[in-house]
């Protein structure tokens, strides 16, 4: 036989789980006045909780693309890692041979010329982009 406390627990569980009321609880409600009042209150609460609320539209996909692009840090791929080490090895190799063969003069001349060329290219590209 179901007592009022157990019936109350089952009624609340039914409300929370959105399940149909068990038969034993339903028959208990018919016999018990206080549980009938509780059941009516819970039904009232359910109708209030089930009221639909206004929501906003989902933004278009470009909004999310922008959000992802501007916040996700690009992960370094294995290919980029290999390239990094190759470049580092190449620079170290040059430094080694420059020191070993005592080619500081020509090395500084070549790198200065290279830096000058790169600056000219950067200025040219920058101007095109700006225009």
């Amino acid at each position: 036989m179901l007592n009022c406390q157990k019936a109350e627990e089952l009624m609340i569980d039914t409300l929370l789980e959105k399940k149909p009321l068990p038969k034993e609880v339903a028959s208990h409600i018919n016999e018990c006045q206080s549980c009938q009042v509780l059941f009516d209150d819970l039904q009232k609460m359910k109708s209030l909780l089930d009221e639909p609320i206004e929501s906003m539209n989902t933004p278009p996909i470009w909004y999310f693309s922008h959000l992802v692009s501007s916040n996700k840090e690009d992960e370094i791929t294995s290919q980029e890692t290999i390239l990094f080490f190759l470049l580092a090895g190449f620079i170290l190799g040059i430094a080694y041979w420059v020191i070993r063969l005592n080619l500081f003069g020509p090395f500084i001349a070549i790198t200065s010329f290279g830096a000058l060329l790169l600056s000219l290219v950067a200025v040219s590209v920058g101007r095109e982009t700006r225009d």
Partner: protein
Amino acid sequence: MQWEVKSRECDLGEQQLLDKAIKGDKDALSLLLQNNYQFIMGYFIKLTSSPEIALDLTQETMLRAIKKLSQFNKKAKLSTWLITIGTNIYRDWLRKEKRAKEELDQLVINEPAPKNDALNQIIESLPPEKRLPLVLKYYYGYTYEEIAIILEIPPGTVRSRLHNTIKELRCKL
């Protein structure tokens, strides 16, 4: 547009998108976020009763998810993971609001929404520790165990808290 609880079923399409997103596919990640937007937005609207605040919190949740996607272990559904992030953001927001309110005594925390007054009053009348389990259980159908994981409290506490909440609401009706 009426808000409807979005299905939490993680279908095959979502799994594939998730795999691609974790590998760095930005388009897949964008699509996943778009698919879960209403789900998270609805959660915050229920919690805050303010579409404006919900909008900010949803965006913050999305940003944190983007940054922490590599930490997603796929044990839970993506929507559950997003709800967990959202819950932490909501708690942070509550702390900030509380601090701001202490500094400015007359600051209004939530702008009252003009619609669904009765519903807003019911949910707003609850403290956050009762509001969160109610929204997660009633509107999102999470199990006690899932809510316990999201809120980092024991499952028994979730059940007792929910039962107490219903009793409290009954008194307020």
